[in-house]
C-alpha cells in the first residue's frame, strides 16, 4: 500500500469497475445533472403548453405524462443522486477516511441507477404511453386506470429504491466506523451529520415505498385488493402508505442541502458556524417529526377532526427546529467578514427563498385553510420554493464551492455570478406568480386553464425558459473549468474554508487519507 502514485485504471473499465469514492461521486454527479436536464426538458414542455390558455402543443394525455415524469425524474433522478454523489466525494474526505466502508456495494448502488431510469424513460415510447398519474401515483389512477407501462414504472421504483438503500447503508457504515481518531460525533462537519441522519431516514422509508409499489403490482397482476374497494381494500390506504414514505422523503431531499449551506456560510463569513450543537439537535428533531406528520398531505380525504388537529399541530412544530437553523445561519453571517463569491450567493439565495417556501408550508399546514390551497398552484409554488430554491440552489452552491478542490481549477467567477442572478430572477419570475394563480383557484396538473390566469401563466413560462437556459450556462462553466480553468494549487481554495477536505492537495489526489490524519484540539467545524 506504499505506492501513493497508484492512479485510476484507464479507459471505460475505470468507470465500470471503479470502487473509488471520488470516481463514484463524479459519476453520480454527472448522472444527476443529465437527469436534471431531462426533467428540465419535461418542465419546458409543461410551461410551453401553459404559455397560453387553450390546447396548443401537446394533447392532455401527454401533458400528464410530462408532469408525472418531471416529478419522478427530478426527485429520484436529479436531486437524490446529486446529494449521494456529493456524499461519496466529501464524506470520506471530511472525516479523514480513505474511502467508503463498502466500496464494491458503492459501485453497484450507482450502476443500477441508469438502467432504472432507462426503464422509466422507455415507457414514453410504449403503447398507452408513460405513467400519467402524477409523481404521487395515487391508486386507483396507478392501478385500475394505469397504462400498461405501469409495471415498468414499478420495477424502476424498486431498483432505484434498492440503490438508495444501499447508498445510505454505505454512508452510515462509513460515518460510524471510519472516522479518523479524535473525530468524535460532535466534531463532525455538519454536512456529515445531516447526511448521517438522512441515511437513517432513507433506510427507514425507502422500503415503505417499495412496499407501496409491491402492493400496486399485486393489485394489478395477482388479484389482491389492497387499494381496491371491490375486494375490501381502500384507495385511501395508498395515500397513507405513500405519504408515510413521502414526508420523510422531503427531508431526505432537504437535510443534505442544510448540511451544504452549513459548510459554505461559515467559510464566506469567516466565522465558525453559530450554534453547532443546536444545528445537530434541530436536524435530528426534524427527522423525528417527519414520521408523524404525513397526513397533512391529505387533509381533504375525510379524516376525523382529532386527526386533522394532530397533524396540523405536529406539522407546525417542525417550524421550530427549522427556525433554529435559519436563525443560526443568519447569526453566523452577523458581523462576519463576508464576501459574495458564487457559492455564497447561492447560499444566501437559498436562505431567502427557502424561508419563503417554509412560510407557505406553514400556511398549507393549517388544516382549514388547506381545503382551499389543496391541489392548487399554490402547492406547486410552495414545493418548488423548497425543492428548487432549497435543494437545487444548495447543490449548485456545493458544486461551485468544491469544484476547484475536485479538479484543481478555478471556475469563471463572473460567469458563476451571472448564472446565480439569472437563476434567481428566472426562478422567482417562474414560481412567485404561481402563488397568486393558486390562491385564485387554478388547479395543478391541468393542460388548460381559465382566461383570468393567462397573464401570470405567461410570466411563469417566460421565467421557466430563463431559468432553464441559465443551467446551460452552468454546464458550460463547469466544463470550461475542468478543461481550461485557471489552475489552483492552494490546499485551501477559499481562505475562510475549514475542515479536513481542505488539508489534502489540490486537486484532490485519487487516494486521500490512506493514513488517518491527526486532528488538532479544535473541532473541525470551528
Amino acid at each position, binding site marked *: 500500500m506504499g505506492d501513493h502514485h497508484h492512479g485510476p485504471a484507464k479507459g471505460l473499465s475505470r468507470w465500470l469497475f471503479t470502487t473509488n469514492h471520488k470516481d463514484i461521486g463524479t459519476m453520480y454527479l454527472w448522472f444527476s445533472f443529465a437527469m436534471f436536464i431531462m426533467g428540465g426538458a419535461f418542465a419546458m414542455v409543461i410551461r410551453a403548453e401553459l404559455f397560453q390558455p387553450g390546447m396548443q402543443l401537446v394533447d392532455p394525455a401527454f401533458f400528464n405524462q410530462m408532469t408525472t415524469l418531471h416529478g419522478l425524474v427530478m426527485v429520484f433522478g436529479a436531486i437524490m443522486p446529486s446529494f449521494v454523489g456529493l456524499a461519496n466525494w466529501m464524506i470520506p474526505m471530511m472525516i479523514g477516511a480513505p474511502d467508503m*466502508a*463498502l466500496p464494491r*456495494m458503492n459501485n453497484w448502488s450507482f450502476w443500477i441507477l441508469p438502467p432504472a431510469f432507462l426503464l422509466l424513460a422507455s415507457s414514453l415510447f410504449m403503447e398507452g404511453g408513460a405513467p400519467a398519474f402524477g409523481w404521487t401515483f395515487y391508486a386507483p389512477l396507478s392501478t*385500475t*386506470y394505469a397504462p400498461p407501462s405501469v409495471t415498468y414504472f414499478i420495477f424502476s421504483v424498486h431498483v432505484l429504491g434498492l440503490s438508495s*438503500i444501499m447508498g*445510505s*447503508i*454505505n454512508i*452510515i*457504515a*462509513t460515518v*460510524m*466506523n*471510519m472516522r479518523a481518531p479524535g473525530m468524535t460525533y460532535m466534531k463532525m462537519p455538519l454536512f456529515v451529520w445531516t447526511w448521517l441522519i438522512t441515511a437513517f431516514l432513507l*433506510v*427507514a*422509508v*425507502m*422500503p*415503505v415505498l*417499495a*412496499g*407501496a409499489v409491491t*402492493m400496486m403490482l399485486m393489485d394489478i397482476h395477482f*388479484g389482491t*385488493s*389492497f387499494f*381496491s*374497494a*371491490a*375486494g*375490501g381494500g*381502500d384507495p*385511501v*390506504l395508498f395515500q*397513507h*402508505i405513500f405519504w*408515510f414514505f413521502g414526508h420523510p422523503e422531503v427531508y431526505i431531499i432537504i437535510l443534505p442541502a442544510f448540511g451544504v449551506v452549513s459548510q459554505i456560510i461559515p467559510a464566506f463569513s469567516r466565522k465558525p458556524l453559530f450554534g453547532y450543537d443546536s444545528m445537530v439537535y434541530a436536524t435530528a428533531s426534524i427527522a423525528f417529526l417527519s414520521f408523524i406528520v404525513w397526513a397533512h398531505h391529505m387533509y381533504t380525504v*375525510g*379524516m*376525523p377532526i382529532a386527526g386533522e388537529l394532530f397533524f396540523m399541530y405536529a406539522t407546525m412544530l417542525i417550524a421550530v427546529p427549522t427556525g433554529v437553523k435559519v436563525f443560526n445561519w443568519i447569526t453566523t453571517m452577523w458581523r462576519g467578514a463576508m464576501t459574495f463569491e458564487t457559492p455564497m450567493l447561492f447560499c444566501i439565495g437559498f436562505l431567502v427563498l427557502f424561508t419563503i417556501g417554509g412560510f407557505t408550508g406553514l400556511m398549507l399546514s393549517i388544516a382549514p385553510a388547506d381545503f382551499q390551497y389543496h391541489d392548487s398552484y399554490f402547492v406547486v409554488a410552495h414545493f418548488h420554493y423548497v425543492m428548487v430554491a432549497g435543494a437545487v440552489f444548495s447543490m449548485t452552491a456545493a458544486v461551485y464551492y468544491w469544484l476547484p478542490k475536485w479538479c484543481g481549477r478555478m471556475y469563471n467567477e463572473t460567469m458563476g455570478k451571472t448564472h446565480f442572478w439569472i437563476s434567481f430572477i428566472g426562478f422567482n419570475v417562474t414560481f412567485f406568480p404561481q402563488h397568486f394563480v393558486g390562491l385564485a383557484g387554478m388547479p395543478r396538473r391541468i393542460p388548460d386553464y381559465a382566461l383570468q390566469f393567462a397573464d401570470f401563466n405567461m410570466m411563469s413560462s417566460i421565467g421557466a425558459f430563463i431559468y432553464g437556459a441559465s443551467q446551460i450556462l452552468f454546464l458550460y462553466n463547469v466544463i470550461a473549468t475542468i478543461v481550461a480553468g485557471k489552475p489552483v494549487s492552494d490546499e485551501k481554495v477559499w481562505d475562510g474554508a475549514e475542515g479536513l477536505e481542505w488539508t489534502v492537495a489540490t486537486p484532490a489526489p485519487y487516494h486521500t487519507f490512506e493514513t488517518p490524519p491527526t486532528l488538532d484540539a479544535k473541532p473541525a467545524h470551528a
Partner: protein
Amino acid sequence: MIRVSDNPAIDTAAKLVVVAIGMFAFVFVVMVPLYDVLCDALGINGKTSDTAYTSVQAGVDESREITIQFVATNNDGMPWEFRPDVTAMKVNPGASNDTIFLARNPLPQDMVAQAIPSVSPSRAAEYFHKTECFCFNQQPLEGGGVAEMPLQFIVDQELPRDIKTITLSYTIFDVTDMVNGAVAAR
C-alpha cells in the same frame, strides 16, 4: 449487542439490512391491518359493518323521521343493470325497514358481483345497522339472469339529531376473475 461480523463496517451494514427488510415487512403486517382496525374503530371511511347486526330491543323513536336515499353505481366496466327498487324512504330510528335492489346480468356468460356499501355522511356510518344485506355475500348471476337483492336495516336511536338524511350508496364490482382466480390458486 449482537455482532454479525468481525469487520465493524459489515456488521453495521448487516444490521441496517435487517432494519430495511423489517420496514418492508412493516408495511404489510402492521400498516395495512392497523389501518383497517382504526377505520373500523373510528368509523371513518364510510364503511359499514360487513356482518349482520343483531338488533337490541329498544323503542322506536317516533319523534323524528330520517330520509334514507339509495344510490346504485356500477364500477368501471361492470355491465350489470343495477338499481334500487325505491330511491328514497322515510324511516323512524329504531324501526326495522326492508327494501330491495334489482340486478340483471345482460351478458350471456355467468358472472359474480360484489356490492360495496358506503354511507354518507360518514359520521352516520356507525349508526346505520344492516340486519340483512346482499353486500355481505358475493352475488352470482347466470347469463341473462335477474335477481332481487334484499336489504334490511335499522337506524340507531342514538343517531345525532342534526343528521336528517342518510345516503346509502352501493357500488357493484365485477369480481368474476377474482373469484375464479382464487379457485384456480387453490
